[in-house]
């Protein structure tokens, strides 16, 4: 919501500066950004994610001073960071756990956006920039997981880069070009390190666009109607800076719980073994935040089709604003679609569960046999795509939505916001 500036310089020095470089004016206007007065704690994850990105960049830059991207030295250099580098024992788990926390926050942020319809007109581009950030995060997370050069690092990189080899005609050459050789090796590690250092700054730039876009169109809110009068909004500072700060402190407690007490809980024991190209681990599993997509990949017997489905599962997010045909944004006023959304969420968890297990193991025992994880993941994959099409477009046409409140202020005062 760009509007006329309300900043008035009070002192001579401020006036002097304002005439030459209105940086204070810009900051004051930025922080005074009118925000709907009914934002709940789910809206704190934007701030939390900004913090996550900064924490990853700062810890990452320091770790890069001590890390060596070489197949013979990478594993040892990570151990040296954890054992001998001053505060390396703190920085390394902060960075590794930080990646998980970043994804935890981004998933909550995305599901929040989906529940309250934050992707709808006029916020389509805001949503798409967000999807690009998510995509860049996935690439960064994958590249970063390769760097410690443990068994899962190596074999994860082998499996993921193998996807490109499945592309018809150009696949094999493409894969070799990406790896810098016939298999994952030193050239791969060095380019992955370089790209892992580059991408966070791409993310930072995209975050800049994301924040710019949200300042232009304004935040959505839990009831999904636009602010109409001044009483519908509050200045971002101090109202939401303080609310976000409290939420960030609570989030940091969860972060600290993992860093200090469960640093290995989100990782895999095999990654404490040095990468060995001659020894395949019995189960190659990606990090938890990729598990749902891994389950989609393995749900179909054909490799290429699996890869196409996996990428489609991410690509479909980009066109979500046009798949959801409903005029009503918030699921609070969509009594039926709300349940489809909740099932979608549950299916996401089920896919994650399937991704962590062997496809042929029994997920739901029935009698002597039961349903295998493969079949469970097939059902969940089917629902995942069915949610985007046809459920969302059809529900948008046929669903009878609940009446919307007149304004945010009225909803707040009647206790409905």
């Amino acid at each position: 919501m760009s509007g006329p500036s309300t900043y008035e310089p009070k002192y001579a020095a401020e006036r002097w500066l304002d005439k030459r470089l209105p940086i204070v004016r810009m900051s004051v206007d930025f922080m005074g950004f009118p925000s709907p007065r009914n934002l709940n704690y789910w809206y704190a994850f934007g701030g939390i994610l900004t913090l996550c990105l900064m924490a990853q960049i700062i810890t990452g830059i320091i770790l890069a001073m001590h890390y060596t991207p070489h197949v013979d030295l990478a594993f040892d250099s990570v151990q040296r960071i954890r054992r001998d580098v001053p505060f390396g024992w703190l920085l390394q788990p902060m960075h590794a756990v930080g990646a998980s926390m970043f994804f935890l926050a981004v998933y909550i942020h995305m599901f929040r956006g989906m529940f309250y319809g934050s992707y709808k007109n006029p916020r389509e581009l805001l949503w798409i920039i967000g999807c690009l950030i998510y995509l860049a995060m996935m690439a960064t997370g994958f590249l970063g997981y390769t760097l410690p050069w443990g068994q899962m690092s190596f074999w994860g990189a082998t499996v993921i880069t193998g996807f490109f080899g499945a592309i018809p005609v150009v696949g094999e050459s493409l894969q070799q070009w990406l790896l810098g050789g016939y298999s994952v090796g030193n050239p791969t590690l060095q380019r992955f390190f370089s790209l892992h250092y580059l991408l966070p700054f791409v993310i930072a730039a995209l975050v800049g666009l994301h924040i710019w876009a949200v300042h232009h169109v304004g935040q959505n809110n839990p009831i999904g109607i636009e602010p109409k009068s001044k009483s519908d909004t509050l200045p971002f500072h101090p109202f939401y800076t303080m609310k976000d700060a409290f939420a960030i402190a609570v989030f940091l407690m969860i972060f600290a719980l993992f860093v200090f007490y469960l640093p290995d809980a989100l990782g895999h024991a095999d990654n404490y073994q040095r990468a060995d190209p001659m020894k395949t681990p019995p189960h190659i599993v990606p990090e938890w935040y990729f598990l749902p997509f891994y389950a989609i990949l393995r749900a179909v017997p054909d490799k290429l089709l699996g890869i196409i489905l996996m990428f489609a599962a991410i690509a479909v997010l980009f066109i979500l604003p046009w798949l959801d045909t409903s005029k009503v944004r918030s699921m609070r006023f969509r009594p039926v679609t709300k349940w489809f959304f909740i099932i979608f969420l549950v299916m996401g968890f089920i896919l994650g569960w399937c991704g962590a297990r062997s496809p042929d193991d029994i997920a739901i025992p029935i009698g002597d046999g039961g349903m295998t994880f493969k079949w469970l993941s097939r059902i969940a994959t089917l629902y995942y795509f069915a949610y985007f099409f046809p459920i969302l477009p059809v529900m948008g046409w046929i669903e009878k939505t609940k009446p919307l409140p007149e304004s945010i202020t009225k909803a707040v005062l009647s206790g409905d916001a």
Partner: protein
Amino acid sequence: MLKTQKTKMAKTFAAVAIISTSLFAGGISAQAAGGSTEKPAVQEWGFKGPFGTYDRPAMQRGYQVYKESCSSCHALEHLSFRHLGDKGGPFYDANFPNPNDNPVIKAFAKDWEVSDIDQDSGDPIDRPGIPADGFPDIFPNAIAAAASNGGAVPPDLSLIVPARTGGADYVYALLTGYDEVPHDFHLSEGMNYNTYFEGNQLAMARPLFDDAVEYADGTKATTEQMARDVVEFLSWAGDPKMEVRKKVGFATFLFLFIFALLLFMTYKEVWRNVDH
């Protein structure tokens, strides 16, 4: 033509890799052979829990077990002698904040031969270790290690606890899990039967026997006692900064609680006059 050859080669290569891997790991299907891999029992360890610490006398005994029973095959790749005398290490002495000055550490280091270059002639030499040296490699390379051990490379022990699912419980179970071969189980030559090892066939022979070491503190050296002690030592070796991490973690939580409370009160104060 070229492509099919390549794929064929890749397939053969993969097959060889898989077969050799399963042989090295002794991973011949257990179900077909009549054995079964048991889950390790959950043990009480003093280092578990939010305030857990390592048991120093146990770690010291564990180091003795490592030195006398394990170190002929297994290296401690990520440890230096000085680490033993670090704060939180098994032989820390407050009189020697720099572990390189600690006489106990110096004596341990001296027990090991370390390869070096003679500073006058430039010839490769072996000399007694000093605290700053890393624990030496046992074998010159992986091929030599496999050749001397029936094809299986003895894994590095400095990360053995974090590198195994089940951690300390698993390593303890494995060390005490050697058993009679069930009559319907086919054990390959040179292999040993272990209840807890995946596939039950393990290249490593039973390493610990009652009274294999003589403890200086008079503790009776049963197999179980030695296994517990060496696992205590190896748990520290895998995560030597655990104690300081938990201490700082507690302080962090204390800070975050108070900070969050203050922020919450500030938030409530700022919003006092706003209906929401």
